[in-house]
Each structure stands twice: as structure tokens, then as C-alpha cells.
């Protein structure tokens, strides 16, 4: 019984943010000391799907940005990490890939800002895209470095011993074997890009308005209802991905 109660408290602590954000996203006027908003409206949600709405452009651009970055970073990371994984000094090279995370992406952005300004990429979607690729690609390399192990190398050798080419080994053996890993890496890199705020705001100089930038903007304007709605839009795609992961990917595995 005590175990159930404690687990229930944990569950409540985890679910509370989702509930609060959903409630605020459909609320209007929340004066103290009311526990719930005084008025309810789905107008902001409807606005998301209406033409010229406050958030639909940000939502669309953020989706395109994160999906394209996830695809490119995963593809490049998959192919190039093989070289690093089989290098005798693998750990030293991988250390380079860890830095953008350990030193904070926003600090990296501060150090790189000058180059983006000089090259005219500051304040542009293309600049933010490139900057985000500089943090998602190293992650993909780290992710796949464990995948390229002795077993994979033996598989490749087996195919070439049996007369197959490297391309055949890649297409017929390695690629099918790595489909789950590719999908997981795609999800992870999508999330890194989707969640990124500091680097985006610094390189995008406020002109590139992804959803996290919008959340901060609404918080600064003290518009908690729109901030909550933008927050919901931020956690919904990862929730769907998580559900797909659990339902489909893990079941397959």
C-alpha cells in the first residue's frame, strides 16, 4: 500500500507539468488565489491551425528545421562514425564530440557568433540550421561509435570473403541490421534540435523564431497562456515519438 502511494506521488510529480500546461493553454484570466483559470477557450489552439496564426509559422519552421537536421546528422553520423570507431585512438577523437555538450551549446554559440556574423549567416534560418548541425552531428557520432563493434566488422569481412563488395555489405547487411539504431538516433537528434534555445537565440539573434524562442518571448511578455500553448506544442511531438518508440520500435526489437 505504501509503495502504491509513493509511486502515485512520483507519478503526480511527473504528470503535473503536462496537466498545468494543458490547463493554462486553454485558460484565460488566472487571478490569485483561483486554482483554475476563470475562463476557458480553445481559441489559441484553433489559431495554431489557422492561416497567419501566432504560432503556426514557428511550429512549421521548427518541424522542418528539426526533421531535416535529424535526417542529415543521423546519415552523416552513421557513415562517418565508422572511421572513428575503428581508429586506434578512437577515444581521443570521441572526446572532441563530447565537448559541445559538456561546455554548453550556448557557450559554443557565443564563441562561434563572430564567424556567423562575418559570413552573413547570423539571424537566418540557414545559419541556425548549420549551428544546430554542429551540435547534433557530434551526438550522432557518439551514438554510433558503440554500434561499429567487432561483430559488425566480422560481418563486413564475411561478406567480402564470400565475394561481395563493400557496397553490397553496406546495403544488404549493415543497413538492415542498423535500422533500429538509425531510428533511435533520428529521434534523439530531432529532440536536441527541437529543444535547443540558447544557441538558436544567439545565432538567430531573435529573428529565427523557433518554438523555444517563442516560449521565452511569451514569458517575457507575461503572456502565460500563449507560453503554455507553445510549451504544449514543444512537448507533443516528443511525446508522440516516445509513444511510437515504446509501441512500435521496442516491440519490433
Amino acid at each position, binding site marked *: 500500500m505504501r*509503495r502504491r502511494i509513493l*509511486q502515485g506521488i*512520483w507519478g503526480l*510529480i*511527473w*504528470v*503535473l*507539468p*503536462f496537466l*498545468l*500546461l494543458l490547463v493554462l493553454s486553454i485558460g484565460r484570466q488566472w487571478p*490569485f*488565489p483561483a*486554482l483554475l483559470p476563470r475562463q476557458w477557450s480553445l481559441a489559441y489552439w484553433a489559431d495554431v491551425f489557422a492561416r497567419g496564426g501566432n504560432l503556426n509559422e514557428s511550429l512549421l519552421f521548427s518541424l522542418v528545421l528539426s526533421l531535416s537536421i535529424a535526417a542529415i546528422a543521423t546519415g*552523416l553520423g552513421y*557513415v*562517418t562514425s*565508422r*572511421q*572513428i570507431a575503428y581508429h586506434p585512438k578512437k577515444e581521443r577523437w570521441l*572526446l*572532441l564530440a563530447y*565537448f*559541445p*555538450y*559538456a*561546455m*554548453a551549446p*550556448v*557557450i*559554443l554559440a*557565443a*564563441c*562561434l*557568433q*563572430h*564567424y556567423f556574423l562575418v559570413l552573413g549567416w547570423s539571424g537566418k534560418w540557414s545559419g541556425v540550421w548549420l549551428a544546430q*548541425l*554542429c551540435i547534433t*552531428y*557530434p551526438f550522432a*557520432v557518439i551514438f554510433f561509435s558503440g554500434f561499429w563493434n567487432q561483430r559488425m566488422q566480422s560481418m563486413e569481412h564475411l561478406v567480402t570473403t564470400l565475394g561481395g563488395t*563493400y557496397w553490397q555489405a553496406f546495403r544488404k547487411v549493415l543497413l538492415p541490421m542498423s535500422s533500429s539504431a538509425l531510428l533511435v538516433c533520428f529521434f534523439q537528434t530531432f529532440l536536441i534540435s*527541437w*529543444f535547443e*534555445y*540558447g544557441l538558436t537565440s*544567439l545565432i538567430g539573434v531573435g529573428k529565427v523564431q523557433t518554438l*523555444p524562442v517563442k*516560449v*521565452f518571448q511569451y*514569458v517575457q511578455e507575461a503572456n*502565460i497562456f500563449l*507560453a503554455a500553448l507553445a*510549451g504544449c506544442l*514543444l512537448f507533443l511531438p516528443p*511525446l508522440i*515519438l*516516445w509513444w511510437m518508440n*515504446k509501441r512500435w520500435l521496442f516491440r519490433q526489437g
Partner: protein
Amino acid sequence: MKKPLRLLSWAVFLVLAALPLLAGWGYAGAYSLGMTGLLHKGVTLAHWQAVWSDAAFWKSMGFSVYVALTAISLATFFALLSVVAWQRDFRRGWLSYAVYLPLTVPAMVVGFFTFNLLSKGGLLSRISYRLGFTDSLVAFPDWVNDPFGIGIIVAHTWMAVPFFMLLFYNLFQSEGLVSLGQVARSLGAGSGQVVRKVFVPVLLRKASPILVLYGLFVMGSYEIPLLLGTQSPQMISVLAIRKLQRFNLMDVPQAYAVSVFFVVLVVGVLVLVSGRGKRWRLKSKDGVLNQKMAS
């Protein structure tokens, strides 16, 4: 792999992973030493001296370390407790699903939610008023934008607990701690002793490199302290970016000096962690060898 493809792979890695780091560090270092920038007058250590002698910088460093240590300690405690007590529930049931939920929320949203939960006008303040614990909005304590970083610590702990739970649970399985616990019990250890002397030391030792890395991540975090922090003390990333964005151009070299200092700190810790990781691996290999030789 064919040679052109091999070369192309290295080129991509160098351009996308190594070059941005080296170019960024190079520029920041040069700017902080007065070698470049709008007001540069030749090589000088004046900006570094200004940072070293600035109490706000040391306060900021101390505050970042304090927040990271507190959040990591709290998250480690709660995660260890949950995994050791409920490790069977992680395999199936609602807990195995729910533990992933907080991982789908970005730091910016966690900061926003924590503000709406812990601020004077937030949900907890309203509940406390309804229950008669406080008689007005201002009577509720300062839990966000406070000098002790309570809001920042709560937000980071909330984010870290599920991640650590998954980490400890996976280690629990991979290290075969269930069997180790049974062996300890059959040798006469009580449940408390098994937890204190077997589970906790093994889990902490195996997880320590990741705990250190997560600590660095918290120290360098930006979104949460930006929303929930104060003007003084500030977390290190917020201090660096605010200095960079000020109108006073004399602050820019100092912003880069702060950034370079943080980078050097991170590099040092990473090298230390990777070195210790190697030693641990070697030690464990030796341990296995010794066991084999003994048997």
C-alpha cells in the same frame, strides 16, 4: 571502405565537429587577450585580470558549482532510492512508461512550468493560501528568482531524476546486482547492508563518469537559470551571455574570458574523467585476470 569515402568521412568529422570547436575557442581566446575585436590594442592580460578580480565572477562560479552539486545529489538520492526499492516495477507496469515522460520536456518548458508552480503567484502559493498556510500572495516564500537558486535546483532535479533512474536501473541489470544481493544475503547480510554495501557503491562507482558529465551540463545550463535565476548570483552561462550582450563593449572581452575559462574547466574535467574511466576499466580487467588466475 574505399579511400575517397574514408577521406570524406574524416573531412566531414573535422569540418562539423573539430573545426567549430577550434575556431570558436581560438577566436574567444584571441578576443579575451586583446588580439582581435573592436577595441583591441594589442596583446594584454587586462581582461583576464578584470575577470579574476571580479567578485561577481567567483560568486557565479561558486553558485554554478553549488547548484550542480545540490541538484545532482538530490537527483542521485531519489533515483537510487526508487530503483533499489522498486526495481521490479521498472520492468513492467505504469512506472516503466511514466519514467520516460519527463524526458520529453525541454529545459525551457521545465523552467516555465517551475515558475508557474513555485512563484508567489504560482499553483503552490494558491494551494497554500486555500489551505490557510499563507494569508496573501507576498506571504509565500521566494522559491524562484531567489538568491539560493531553489527554483533552478528543483527544475534540474525534476529533469535529472528520471534520467538517473533509467541509468541506475540499466546498471542494476547489467551488473547483475540481483545475484550479488542474493550472494550477500546468503553470507548473512541484512537487507540494509545489501543496499548500503553492495547496491549503492556499485551503482555510484559505475555511474560516476555520467554523473560528473551531467554535473557539467547543469553548471553550463542556460534556459532554466535565465527564467528562474536572479541578477546576482548568476549561473556561469548566463553571466557570459549577459556580458556579451551588454552595450558596454569593454564587457565583450571579459565575456570571452569567462567562456574560455569554463571551456578549460570542462576540458580538464573531461580529460580527468576519461583517464579515470580508462584506469577503472584496466583495474576491472586486472580483477578479472586475477580471479581467473586464482581459480
